[in-house]
């Protein structure tokens, strides 16, 4: 069970190595442009080498002082993350404001507000008010979708 905590340094190390490998694929510039300075790949590689050194320190610290076990996330958290995906799907297929309304309603409900009318009011009034503020005051145009097409014409 305790070995699972080493997932963090292992993940970070793999990430750093992946970045180094990707950086090595970058184009190189001619000497006359770069001069005495660095190639585009040098700085990210340098950073990831530092990161690998720090990760090895972190692993040593884990070895000396074992960190507290991290509790698993609860349903509400996972569901909220799932709502981000749902929001993405609704935004690209229907409208950003439909996405916001649906996600606000579901979020309020799963977070414990069981009164439907409160959730519905919150999910409709808030995005509506923000839309009016941004559209009239800040003159921001929102991405086209089912609702915004009706509004913008």
């Amino acid at each position, binding site marked *: 069970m305790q070995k699972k905590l080493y997932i963090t340094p292992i993940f970070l190390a793999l990430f750093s190595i992946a970045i180094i490998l990707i950086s090595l694929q970058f184009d190189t510039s001619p000497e006359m442009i770069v001069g005495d*300075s660095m190639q585009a790949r040098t700085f990210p590689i340098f950073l990831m080498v530092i990161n690998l050194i720090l990760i090895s320190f972190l692993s040593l610290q884990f070895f000396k002082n074992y960190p507290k076990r991290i509790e698993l996330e609860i349903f509400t958290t996972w569901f909220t993350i799932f709502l981000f995906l749902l929001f993405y799907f609704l935004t690209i297929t229907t409208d950003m404001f439909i996405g916001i309304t649906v996600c606000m309603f579901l979020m309020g409900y799963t977070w414990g507000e069981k009164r439907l009318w409160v959730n519905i009011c919150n999910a409709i009034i808030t995005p509506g008010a923000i839309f009016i503020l941004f559209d009239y005051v800040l003159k*921001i145009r929102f991405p086209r979708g089912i609702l915004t097409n009706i509004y913008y014409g």
Partner: protein
Amino acid sequence: MVELSAMASVFTDPYLIALIFATTILGIIIGVLPGLGATTGAALLLPFTLTMEPVQAIAVLSTIYVSATFAGSITAILINTPGTSASAATTFDGYPLAQKGEAGRALGIAVVSSTIGGVFSIIVLCIAAPLLARVAYEFRPPEYFALTIFGLSMLASISAGGATKNLIGGVFGVWLSTIGAERVTNIERFMFGNYELYEGLSFVPVFIGLFAISEMLVQSKTVNLIIETVALKAVKLPTKEDYKKIWKTILRSSGIGTFIGILPAEGATVASMIGYSEARRWSKNKEEFGKGSIEGIAGAEAANNAATGGAMVPTMVLGIPGSGTTAIILVGLMVHGLRPGAYLFTEQVDTVYQIFGSMLLANFMFMAMGLYAAKLFARVSLIPRPMLWPIVFALSVIGAYAIQQSTLDIWIALIFGVIGFFARRHGFAVAPIAVGLILGEMVESNLQNSLKMFDGQWWMILTQPLAAFFLVLAFLGLCGPYIYGVITKQKD
């Protein structure tokens, strides 16, 4: 003289006064809502400042900063839950005093200490910032490179997370700044064919994700939390006896808070903890600490608000944020076309001092509101989380979109929200990532320019006295505690 008249102009501009008044109310509301701190509030409000004049926009952000930092103490005292991390030390004595039926007295001391701390730090800001700007004129790329390294090394001592974890976060943030086309050669880095990333990651959606959305996910674990409040009749100003007891503590903590705020990457949270522990160390009544000591409240509150003015010094003069919130203010400056640095103090003196004047006014405003409306604001903290956080979600999504009107920014905010959440769950603070992202471009460009200056001989940076000084400071900051530990171990 120009400086003073610029500062005074804030107090005679009805629009700015009204704006600061409204923002102070908003800042206090943000501060009393557990989870919604100054940083999250500033990140969420940044898009709303888009159409404002630079002074008004920065006044809004800095008012949120000072008022939310203070307001965290209201919930810290009344419900034992710090509204912001900077008020965590206030709970140690604020809540026990409130439990004794002296909530009004505790809040009165918090309000007065915060105001004195805040005003003190703004006076220091007005004096120190132009002086530092004069020194910063002499800075060339090697000095700036060394300074940013020093700033990054200070991340090791941010209170949340461990030193190593904070540094990893900082390096990750610097790496994020490399996404996009490289400045000199225009070679694409980590764009994966997405040309919207050509100019690099936009700061605002990343910050909204790291601070607001990740906090929302953290709060999703506390939906069943039941909050118990302590009754509050009225907020009382400290008595003469109280003042006699705490004036030294307030002054000491104001100094400590301002100094810690000035240090790059250190913020109000560290300041309040040190302010509290120093108050205890110097107190004649140490036994009262933890049981409702007014010195404890004054020590923590004066320090955390003093840090707000201090943190603006490196932000405005050097472009190095003094805390997570000042990182957002720095982005606000850039969005409104103000380039932080020494030249800001010669080319836009009026603007700079109007910003300082706004911060000063905000301090007086929150003092008045803290004294007369704390009871009302305390009730705001009882807004049900299932109603509040969906609103934060909507504000985050639309705020991320608004800056560049790009849907990609929404996805960036959501992705960084999830990254920030899992980072926090595994003990990594998100502020180092934000600071790293801001400093990243400075580090790389100044290193490139230094290498050009010295024909590719990087070690020549060490021959520049100021650069060497900052690098030695960075080294001591990183390795000092370990070296000290080894030496004391050998002596033992």
